[in-house]
């Protein structure tokens, strides 16, 4: 039996304006709440989503953020996959370093998001867009 909650709770948000950044992070918070993450961790997840969603907006102009729940034995995760067809990242190490940003300012962005989540994978190439996958785990909540 595939978990019915898994199917229902997956959702995708198109990122095309700053309003979508808010929508995406609120959806992420809802998923985190379903897995009974503490309020602090819900905010952490929402902040990480906000950072990468805004990153899409700033560098690619448009993209998608897909959020879902994944179960693995006695733990569950909020999974976030952010995709864009933007210019891609030329130097990934540089982009991930804390404080880096080509558009100036704090630029905490990607490096910050990585700090907040348990798992963080980034695939990008110049001219081929960027895909970021991040997960945060929580002990599984069994339906009683």
């Amino acid at each position, binding site marked *: 039996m595939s978990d019915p909650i898994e199917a229902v709770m997956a959702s995708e948000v198109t990122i095309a304006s700053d309003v979508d950044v808010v929508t995406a992070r609120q959806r992420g918070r809802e998923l985190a709440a379903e897995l009974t993450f503490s309020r602090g961790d819900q*905010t952490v997840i929402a902040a990480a989503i906000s950072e990468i969603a805004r990153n899409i907006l700033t560098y690619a102009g448009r993209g998608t953020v897909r959020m879902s729940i994944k179960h693995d034995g006695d733990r569950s995760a909020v999974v976030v996959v952010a995709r864009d067809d933007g210019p891609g990242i030329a130097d990934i190490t540089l982009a991930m370093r804390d404080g880096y940003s080509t558009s100036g300012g704090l630029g905490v962005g990607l490096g910050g998001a990585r700090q907040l989540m348990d798992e963080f994978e980034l695939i990008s190439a110049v001219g081929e867009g960027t895909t970021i996958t991040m997960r945060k785990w929580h002990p599984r909540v069994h339906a009683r």
Partner: protein
Amino acid sequence: MEVPILKQGDYLIASIQSALTDADLTQLRESLGERVGRFRSRGVIVDVTAVDVMDSFAVRTLRDLAHTTWLRGAETVIVGIQPDVAFAMVQLGLTLKGVATALDLEEGLAFLDSQVKHRRRRV
């Protein structure tokens, strides 16, 4: 969604009601900057009690806001940061360094009173 700004004597109080978009935040920064100049306000309180996530853009904008108002002679204090918002912020490395913060509106007003009274300039 525009943020309501109240004038209370020498102070301006902006209460953020709900989730703000980047555009709203930028708008707030400009509105407050303009009003501080217009009313010659001595202090600004930005109440973020209802804000559920503060990411790098929000922090950047608030810092710019504080800097702008300071250039025009007003001290800014951010009040009402929620415990879990603060928790997420410090993990992201966002410290709002150089910007005054207080627990709530009451504390914010007390802070402004003490600052304005001593005519202390924050560097």
